[in-house]
């Protein structure tokens, strides 16, 4: 356990020494906050904050995490770690933990500034918000691990990340409100984790939960757990210590399994009439 915590601590320290990571992790989310308020105004901050939180988690998990992992793998850092008694599971868990801390601090800064400057109200369901944040982070960090495992370069990380990020922004209800989307896009959005993430976080701010809200919250929680769990499993199975380590033949299965949970989530969302 000592090694695990030391690695978590060191990952965090190194992140705070990296100017680019600080800009993308903390400055850009604040810039997004200012931009969103400039576009959507201050009147409905409770609704405005949800996409900002989701974008911050998405950015940290699907770009920040895999870029760091692939960069260190390319430089041979993970090859050196591999020679220690700690297994891949320990390093993956410590990486997830440190990324969760980084995303949490980034989101906390965003929310604190929104409350202080723009009068963002206290969430109606604060505990549910914490749970929602953890589940959304878990799901997206899992996806980030899969990206890191299959991407052979930083460029590939950016390509894969964008191919997930943009659909979630455009038709996943993150950047464009669901009610503004055409019917087909609304249907497709149910299959994207971004929509469930958005809905969970937004409702924690805007609704005093009724029984039906709690029920829907639990279903969405299950969906994100499923997506995060399968992605983390796939990311762990396909984890590569070295740049020249080839993906196993089972890679298609694990990536397929990970994506299959998105499809299952979509059908489950429709079945349970999750708005």
């Amino acid at each position, binding site marked *: 356990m000592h090694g695990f915590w*030391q690695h978590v601590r060191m990952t965090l320290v190194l992140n705070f020494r990296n100017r680019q990571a600080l800009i993308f992790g903390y400055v850009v989310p604040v810039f997004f906050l200012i931009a969103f308020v400039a576009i959507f105004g201050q009147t409905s901050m409770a609704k405005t904050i949800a996409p900002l939180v989701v974008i911050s988690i998405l950015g940290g998990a699907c770009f920040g995490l895999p870029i760091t992992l692939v960069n260190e793998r390319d430089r041979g850092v993970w090859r*050196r770690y*591999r020679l220690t008694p700690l297994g891949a599971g320990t390093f993956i868990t410590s990486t997830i933990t440190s990324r969760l801390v980084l995303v949490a601090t980034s989101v906390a800064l965003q929310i604190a500034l929104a409350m202080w400057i723009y009068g963002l109200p206290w969430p109606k369901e604060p505990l549910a918000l914490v749970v929602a944040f953890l589940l959304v982070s878990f799901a997206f960090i899992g996806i980030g691990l899969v990206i890191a495992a299959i991407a052979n370069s930083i460029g590939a990380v950016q390509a894969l990340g964008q191919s997930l990020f943009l659909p979630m922004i455009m038709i996943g209800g993150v950047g464009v409100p669901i009610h503004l989307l055409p019917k087909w896009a609304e249907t497709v959005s149910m299959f994207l984790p971004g929509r469930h993430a958005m809905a969970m976080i937004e409702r924690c701010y805007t609704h005093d939960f009724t029984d039906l809200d709690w029920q829907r919250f639990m279903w969405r929680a299950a969906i994100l757990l499923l997506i995060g769990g399968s992605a983390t499993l796939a990311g762990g199975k396909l984890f590569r*210590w070295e740049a020249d380590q080839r993906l196993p033949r089972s890679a298609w299965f694990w990536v397929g399994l990970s994506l299959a949970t998105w499809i299952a989530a979509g059908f489950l969302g429709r079945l349970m009439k999750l708005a």
Partner: protein
Amino acid sequence: MPAAVEVTDLVKRYGTVEAVRGVSLSVAPGEIVAVLGPNGAGKTSTLECIIGLREADGGTISVCGIDARRDPSAMRERIGVQLQATSLPEQIRVREALKLFASFYRHSVTPQSLLDRFSLGDKADATFASLSGGQKQRLGLALAVINEPEVLFLDEPTAGMDPQARRELHAVIRAMKAAGRSVLITTHYIEEAEELCDRVAVIDHGTVIACDTPAALIARSASATRIVCTTDRPLDRTALATLENATAVEVDGLVARISSGAINHTVIALVHHLEAVGATLVDLQIRKPSLEDVFIELTGRKLRD
């Protein structure tokens, strides 16, 4: 007492290329063994299979009595490794790296003791990116011994090393031996193997073609002792070939190399010959066959080919 390292019939393939073809070797406790071979001979692949960086396609590997293929984590608790190049996060500081790696092991020495031992004290707060190549190598070596390993694996450790780092490495290797620990070292520096190692395994085309003490390998050499003499004027090759017990002669300008089956007789005959032809002796050396001669005999290649 079980061998510190016991490798039997190790096989490693990369696609259709068989890089390691049935390598068997052992390292006894307290023994230093060099795996010597030209580039591409399979020595790094062999070492990487043993330490678990590559998955072997066949054979058995036992390190400190542990089945390395089955339980690599338990093995790594008891070994130290220095790769050809050590890579760490660029912004990590030397002291932090030592502290981090120390935390990975159940037993470790203090970072401060390693800073002192490897002359890294004044670089303790320097980032990895700011270290020179030699300092990085020294840090790599410090990380390799941080858990006081029972077996130390070194892959081409002195390639690109500065003299200070090389001296420290040699001191570490000798200290390991003195403490009854073992070292397996891959190298293509023949002098290093000859100077430091108890035994040398010569590997070529993925197989061990000889394994013995440097002295025994040299004794097995078919190469004769050579007289290398430098004179003030060129000598006649045909005349030198008639010297008593001379078996082969090469003349290159003012330098003549004479192989001999009975060195005393040939030297005396040479001196008489020089007097007869009026040549002045500028330099005279007797050269015994070296490990390099043995290597060339065994592989038909020079080490750095």
